[in-house]
């Protein structure tokens, strides 16, 4: 569970739970303070899960507005940050599943369309674009698990709480997702063109993966 109370001078001294309670009790600025405290991380997870700035912005906005409205339902059985992540990630997964039948090309960080670089001279930025594009081809559940655990280093247990599945399921989703990315990302080291992994990702059934 993550630190609920960033002790940064000049910041609101209330911890996340206190801010959420204050919001429920009618403090008009409490929820915005809470959101600003975690916005970078929530945005990053949404952006990497959806691979599209516009969709990620819509997902985050819808999710946090929903959290704003249903804050009184928070029962404290998980950290406030876990709860916020759960709402945001679920909003992302809903969008990702809806668009699965009509995949789009992810936009780069700058928001301008650029081709994905291949070959031996790939820079770090190109690598990031390639990895992001490859992530976008994974089934949404595997993608979300990988974004949380491998991209942003959330403990498996916390990712399991966010996605409300067993830790073993998170491990399986990550492992199978990585195995699929191998085919896509092997060219970063082998200098070979990336094979089409769509046919591999189409069948996500299998033992242990839910």
């Amino acid at each position: 569970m993550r630190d609920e109370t960033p002790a940064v001078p000049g910041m609101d001294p209330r911890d996340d739970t206190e801010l959420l309670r204050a919001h429920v009790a009618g403090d008009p600025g409490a929820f915005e303070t809470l959101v600003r405290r975690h916005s970078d991380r929530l945005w990053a997870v949404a952006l990497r899960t959806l691979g599209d700035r516009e969709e990620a912005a819509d997902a985050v906005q819808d999710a946090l507005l929903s959290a704003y409205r249903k804050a009184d339902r928070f029962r404290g059985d998980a950290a406030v940050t876990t709860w916020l992540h759960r709402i945001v990630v679920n909003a992302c997964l809903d969008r990702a599943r809806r668009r699965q039948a009509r995949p789009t090309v992810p936009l780069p960080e700058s928001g301008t369309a650029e081709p994905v670089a291949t070959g031996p001279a790939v820079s770090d930025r190109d690598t990031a674009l390639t990895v992001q594009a490859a992530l976008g081809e994974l089934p949404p559940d595997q993608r979300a698990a990988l974004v949380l655990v491998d991209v942003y280093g959330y403990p498996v247990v916390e990712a399991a709480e966010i996605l409300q599945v067993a830790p073993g399921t998170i491990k399986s989703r990550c492992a199978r997702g990585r195995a699929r990315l191998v085919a896509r990302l092997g060219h970063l080291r082998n200098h070979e063109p990336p094979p089409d992994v769509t046919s591999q990702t189409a069948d996500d059934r299998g033992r242990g993966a839910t």
Partner: protein
Amino acid sequence: MTRSGIPDDGVDEDLLADYVGGALDGTDEARVAELIATRPDWRAAHDRMAAADAAVRADLAQLGTVPTPAPPELLSGLAERFRAEAPDPAVVPLRRTAAERAARRRRARWLAGAAAAVLLLAFAGLAGASLFGGGQQDSAARTGAAPDSARQTPGPTRSEDGAPLGPNAAGPADTPQRAASGTDYTPRTLLSARDRSGTASLAPTAVPAPLRPLTDPDRLDRCLHQLGTPSGYTASLVDFARFRGRPAAVVVASDSSSDQISVVGPACGTDAAHLLYQTAVVSVHMS
């Protein structure tokens, strides 16, 4: 296929990935370990996957180092949406922190002291006027009587321990009107509850089903006791409606210059008030 679902020929990539990722345990883990130890195709696939697994982890971790600050326009848009959802600025949150309550008490004490000083000066001024001008005894007497009159002003009371008294304790005349407006309130629209008119008897079908037990007068009385109202307030209306899409009772309590609007859940009157939201509306007279 074998009994455990592992193919007799070829490599099950998903199962191998689960093994490499530590997602297997017990029988499956032991079986895959045995296959890697005894079958060249499994061993080759395992060695390849284990090496690539580490490289892919590194690629993904590198993606996580790319700075991705939340766009300012997203945050400003959210702040705007939150403000649109929030109650009107004239609505003052009732629940305050202990520090805020202490500060308010200090301000109240200061104001009480200042008011007493003003009264004393006024009395002294009037007494002085009677001494020097004569014929002002009546006015002086009225001013001096004012504090006693204020103490004797009838109104809603509190019990000895400060607990607010419900409408029944205040007498039948103070029993709140009841309404079932069908409104789905938000913090922003909550003020409109003050304009609702209620009735003494409600059609049960007009009340959302989860709230029907709360229409029982005894249960409602318990609920209002548990909810509590500030000294001087009287519950004037209960609207059995919805709040943010969920069945909830909206309780309007008023005094001479302000209203308190509380939203309680269907369980109010059982173990607690189940307060969902509460605001106070203060009338500000500009002159």
